[in-house]
């Protein structure tokens, strides 16, 4: 489900560390009659998935590397080998450092607030309260919004003339802001949109983590005279670090892959101030019929490397601080 910006990549990413083996079939005695047929059957059953993966993931992966060393004619048809020219073009492109900065800033501006926001919500929602179920469903609602739906709504909210954002700003006595066209606020506006979109999902994950904490620990803490904040700091948060870690990883990856909100709110502008890696690929290969597939593929490989490296680093650093039961 790599097409889905949100859930799929997420569940899969965290799954990476899962064990293998222990499947029922492994424990069975070998050399049974009909084992050959069973093996054949099993291969037939995984074949449909493998064919799809081969055609639309593995072969395209190989093709991306091929295309990244290929030049093309004016219509985008690959026509000659250029070695690493596309890569050196990307690395020496004055926009490259800006793109990396924007991407990093965007990741920080979305991941940290998304997780803190959801953590506060989960802590507030953790103990019983009348109407809790309704509240939880309400907070989950942003999860129902597709990236297009959310972006289109926030485009209206950030509208400089008739949007609510400027209504609030001017009511407080400040000058109206051109949210989406000013370099200083464009990325922030997109980040706000993304954080809002993430809240529902992040809260659900966090609540599942909070729900898994042993109730006896709370009782023991209360008997020892611990207050609300002390319980949150010393019991809840340490015990839900697996959920926190999971969210850091999947939110970062989702953030690196964000596209729709940028396309719909700013189109990468003003002057590249919201052009992230993914939007850069789109801009180079597709926007306004650009058709520079060679350079786009080189950029795509940069994205691939960045995603894999960041995931590996996160697993390496964060996993050590995670408390597993």
């Amino acid at each position, binding site marked *: 489900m790599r097409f889905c910006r949100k859930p799929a990549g997420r569940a899969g990413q965290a799954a990476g560390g899962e064990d293998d083996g222990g499947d029922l079939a492994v424990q069975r005695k070998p050399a049974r009659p009909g084992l050959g047929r069973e093996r054949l059957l099993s291969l037939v059953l995984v074949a449909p998935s493998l064919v799809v993966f081969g055609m639309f*993931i593995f072969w395209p992966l190989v093709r991306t590397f091929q295309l990244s060393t290929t030049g093309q004619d004016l219509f985008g048809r690959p026509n000659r080998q250029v070695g690493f020219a596309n890569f050196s073009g990307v690395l020496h492109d004055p926009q490259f450092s800006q793109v990396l900065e924007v991407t990093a800033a965007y990741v920080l501006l979305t991941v940290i607030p998304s997780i803190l926001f959801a953590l506060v919500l989960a802590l*507030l929602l953790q103990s019983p309260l009348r109407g809790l179920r309704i509240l939880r469903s309400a907070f989950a609602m942003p999860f129902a919004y597709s990236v297009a739906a959310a972006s289109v709504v926030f485009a209206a909210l950030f509208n400089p003339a008739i949007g609510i954002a400027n209504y609030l700003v001017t009511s407080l006595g400040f000058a109206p802001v051109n949210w989406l066209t000013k370099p200083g606020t464009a990325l922030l506006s997109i980040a706000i949109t993304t954080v809002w979109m993430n809240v529902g*999902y992040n809260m659900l994950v966090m609540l599942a983590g909070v729900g898994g904490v042993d109730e006896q620990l709370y009782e023991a803490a209360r008997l020892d005279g611990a207050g609300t904040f002390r319980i949150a700091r010393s019991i809840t948060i340490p015990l839900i670090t697996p959920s926190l870690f999971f969210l850091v990883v999947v939110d970062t990856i989702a953030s690196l892959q964000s596209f729709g909100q940028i396309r719909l709110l700013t189109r990468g502008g003003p002057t590249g101030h919201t052009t992230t890696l993914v939007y850069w690929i789109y801009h180079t290969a597709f926007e306004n019929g650009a058709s520079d597939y060679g350079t786009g593929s080189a950029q795509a490989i940069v994205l691939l490397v960045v995603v894999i490296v960041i995931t590996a680093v996160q697993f390496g650093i964060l996993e050590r601080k995670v408390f597993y039961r």
Partner: protein
Amino acid sequence: MSARAKSERAQPVSARAESERAQPVSARAKSGQARPVNARIVRVLALLLLAVLVLFPVYFTVVGSVMGPGDIASAPPSLYPHSLTFANYRGVFRAVPLGRQYLNSTLVAVLITLAQLTCAVLSAYAFVFLALPFRRTLFAVFLFTLMVPWESIIIPNFLFMADHQLRNTYLALVLPFLAGGFGTFLLRQSFRTFPVELRDAATLDGASHGRFLLTILLPLSRPALASVGIFVFLSAWNQFLWPLLITDSPQRQTLQIGLASLNDAEQANPGLIMAGVTLALLPTAALVAFGQRFLIRGLTAGAVR
């Protein structure tokens, strides 16, 4: 509180002395309660504040869709409708072929969901219940598919569709997503917890693989199937970049791209856009509201071990 009231009512005459004596007790009782009560109030207020913050865009979507231009497209914007209108809902179908796009999105999402469920059930069955050769390697292959960002391989996929004249077809919209590692992963986890005794009993009764799968395993795995189904449907329904690249004729576009066109063409008409968003939200909002427990299971497949 009530303790003091009672004591005052019980001995109204000896007022001063009594209340002086009662004071420490009632004060202690009060402070003993006061802390939790204050914490409750703070908690409820914080939740209400956050709810307003989180729900305002939702409110704006739905209420904006029934506001006339005088309300929604004015400065300062109106926060509530002065009169209800359904003109936006009529208008949005004229602005973009929304009915057709609704159908396209439904068809594409349903096809992808059914195909991914089928592929996932088959491969998860092979991983768990059959003597699959190269099991570890194959499982690594399935997991690897989840780590490759789709955006990094989108150019060759786009070129493949263009080369085979598949742009603006349903085939292009569904083909790359007919199988996914996520469903296999989640179903494999679910199948692995399946009681071995039941499996052995079925084998002893002479049930074939197909019979065991269809009459015993799948009915008992409904929650896991629902998780995968809801997940795949949501992500298919919400797809944006791929349909944007692969379709340019409005009749072949999905609802999400329709929303994008609405946003480009009807900037002066936010009510119309909100009507489109509200319609697009109906199926996903229903899934989030009613399928929450399945969602949580799918969401946290790797988070809570």
